[in-house]
């Protein structure tokens, strides 16, 4: 008989990937210019984790999915309007900064505390999901730290597939170098899985799912606790964008072959 899992997905929000990001130094340290004006989305890595969690829960009757998210409440509310139509879950909201300039230890502590506070949490059925990486917190260690704080010893990172066995054990495919997967077997929960892209497409918007989710999301947002400041003791020595990948230059009356040749040389030189 399949286990009724308690699946907790950790997922923050990031600026919509189409936006132009510009680091600036604000009164509170490094920040992104106009970040609060930019549209936001659920971190794409965490999105995969959420879809996988919902898929697993659907196949295991009695399972439940929570989404624990630390982000500015107003932005989180905005993001939920889209995410809530995708899959069923219950939101646990933490009101705080979701910028790239946060300290993973502090973030992990806040997330772990929120997970511990879930009423009726049963470690024997607990699976903590999240993004292996983050489109914002690029250190990629937050989820691991969450697991450590929750005492989860079985941790898997870069997960592309989770196959549940009839006895409740599961097989995990983790990405490793060389385009292959490492296959691990685990006796069962509790465990933590940091997802890569998984195997599922983005679910279609389903208004019925949205209606059901929103009945719990709005109250969750209203009682969201403020997460403690995450900058304490952290000093950012410098902040810079990755090397510019886009260069616009206007040339006229130049043969296409020459332009192509120049682009090839530019690519060969590493851009």
């Amino acid at each position, binding site marked *: 008989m399949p286990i009724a899992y308690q699946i907790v997905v950790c997922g923050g929000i990031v600026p919509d990937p189409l936006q132009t990001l510009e680091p600036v130094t604000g009164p509170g340290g490094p920040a992104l210019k106009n970040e609060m004006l930019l*549209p936001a989305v659920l971190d794409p890595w965490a999105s995969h984790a959420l879809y996988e969690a919902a898929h697993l829960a659907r196949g295991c009757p009695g399972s439940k999915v929570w989404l624990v998210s630390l982000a500015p409440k107003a932005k989180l509310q905005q993001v939920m309007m889209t995410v809530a139509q995708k899959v069923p879950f219950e939101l646990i909201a933490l009101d705080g900064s979701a910028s790239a300039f946060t300290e993973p230890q502090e973030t992990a502590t806040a997330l772990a505390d929120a997970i511990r506070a879930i009423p009726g949490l049963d470690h024997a059925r607990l699976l903590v999901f999240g993004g292996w990486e983050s489109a914002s917190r690029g250190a990629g260690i937050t989820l691991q730290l969450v697991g450590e704080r929750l005492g989860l010893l079985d941790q898997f990172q870069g997960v592309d597939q989770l196959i549940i066995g009839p006895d409740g054990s599961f097989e995990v495919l983790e990405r490793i170098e060389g385009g292959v997967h490492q296959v691990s077997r685990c006796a069962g929960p509790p465990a933590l899985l940091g997802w890569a892209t998984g195997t599922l497409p983005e679910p*279609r918007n389903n*208004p019925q799912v949205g*209606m059901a989710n929103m009945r719990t999301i709005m109250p969750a947002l209203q009682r969201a606790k403020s997460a403690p400041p995450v900058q304490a003791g952290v000093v950012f020595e410098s902040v810079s964008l990755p090397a510019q990948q886009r260069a616009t230059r*206007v040339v006229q009356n130049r043969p296409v072959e020459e332009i192509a040749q120049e682009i090839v040389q530019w690519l060969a030189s590493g851009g």
Partner: protein
Amino acid sequence: MPLDPAAATSLDPATAPAGQRAEMSVDIVCVGFGPAMGGFLTTLSRGLIQPDGTPAVTGATLPGAPPQVVCYERADDLGFGVSGLVTRARGLRATFPDLDSAQIPMAAPVRSEKVLYLLDPIGASRRSFALRCVDEAIRAFRRVLPCADEALELPWTPEFLHKRGGLVLSLGQFMQWVGAQVQSSGTVQLWPATPVSEALIEGDRVAGVRLLDQGVDRQGRPGPDFLPGMDVRAGLTVVGDGPVGPIGRQLDERFGLPAGHVQHEWAVGMKMVVDLPEHCDLEPGTVWHTIGFPEPEIFGFLYVHPNRVASLGIFVPSWFESPVRTAYRYLQHWMLHPRLWRVLQGGRLRSWGAKTIGESGRRGEPQLVGNGFARIGEGSGSTNVLTGSGVDEAWTTGTQLAEAVLELLRAGKAFTSENLSATYVERRRASWVEHEARVAEHARDGFQRGVLTGLVGMALTGLSGGRLSLPGRRASVPPPSPRLESYYAGKIGAAELERLRQDCLTRQTPLHDAFMERCGWPAIPFDGKLLVSNQDALLLGGKVQAPPGYADHVVFLYPELCTECGARLCLEVCSGQAIAAGKNGLPEFDREKCVHCGACVWNCTRSLPYGPGRANIALRAGAGGLHSAEN
């Protein structure tokens, strides 16, 4: 050529097997989240719950609970795809008496207003003899007139044009602010990225809406993850999907316009949000309006937000009868005018977008109510064409409907045409929106006879409180499309014109660059920051995208009509170059470049024989578009 309506490219592309289409019931379903819906939902949500949290009124869907209210927005997020504006904010302040502009990102109180008449520094603008005389007179007296950088600052502007005491807003940011508040009430659900495909019409009653099918290919054929759009049934359907929204247009076709009403006037508004250069000393709340350049018919605007940011752009109106009307190219020439370039040079593009505006005003007002439905906002003809104001009016129509709905709910009355007329329509007719719309009704008629006549007519109407106006041409069908031969007569010979046209056809490019440059418009000196190509504006500014799994929303109903079309104005006017010349003279649509502005529909020159005034282009419900909330 007789055309069979049944032979048009299918208008109902995906067909769900019986029983597969899910159904849901709510009390009120709303279509589109623009300023009118913001006003409606803000006012409605305040009246649904008592201060102690108990229901103030109850709905039919969940007995004992407040009415279930759900709003579907086509764009991928709230506030995408709308526009920067200056408004008197009368309606907004009536809803938010303590409105503090500092709470709203990018908002600023209006500090100063100017109207600039721009002379033509290039000599390529098409100016009438009368206008050339005006230009020469201004140049002759430039030392004694308030002239600088080829622009005359009008020493006086009539009161009806002022926005004194108003606000400069980013409508995108404002709508996000409104959306957050409405959602926080817990009584209303807002769902972006959820296009509504059609109204469910049963007899003479609108019974709800059908959401757009997902998991289909470009032609609407179901794929492996096909999800038929849900039917959302409701006692009241509130339609606020703008001037080119599919539901509003469906209702217009089904129920017709009131006698004598026509919707022929429109404008393409194209704008940018710009980081102003360091040297620019314009203060937040600065408002400039321009006339005269790049073409006399084209109006321009520049509004300054806090933190050295400006919204700026142009309106290309329907009475600019150019066969190569292109908003993007003209926007660049407008920015390069010496008066504008002095403050913009060194600036950087932050956001870009376009939309069409219904400018028929009260004369284009549709059936405001019917059994089970009500229309609000721009699509309901609320835009005031004299004062150039739409957001405040749209917002107010939304609040009027909300007050009416609450009244009916309290009285336990149904949302019938009669009840909605007695509450919503009555409120609207008695309000300043109606009064000012009546004043404005004939304000722009003169523009059909020329720019100077139009400006004089506007002034006459505005100053006389609507008692006087200059007559224009009125017709029950749109004016005929402009032709290259007549527009360029005397400028480009027939042989050269044909050569240019064929050259563009061969290269599969629109005509406007070739013809404008032939007539003296210089090439745009791209700088990669503010002066960028149309596609760069789309990517850097509009961040346009289209999610997979939806059908094309721009459809050429009878391709054979497109093949015969010599004008191909849809290509010229397309804001994002989403319509391009294809093979055999057929236009091709690329939904990943579409900003959903609707310019193609207004500009289609091939009206259908069985539906005079109806274009050969159908603009259906579609997903995606702009991804900037700063517009």
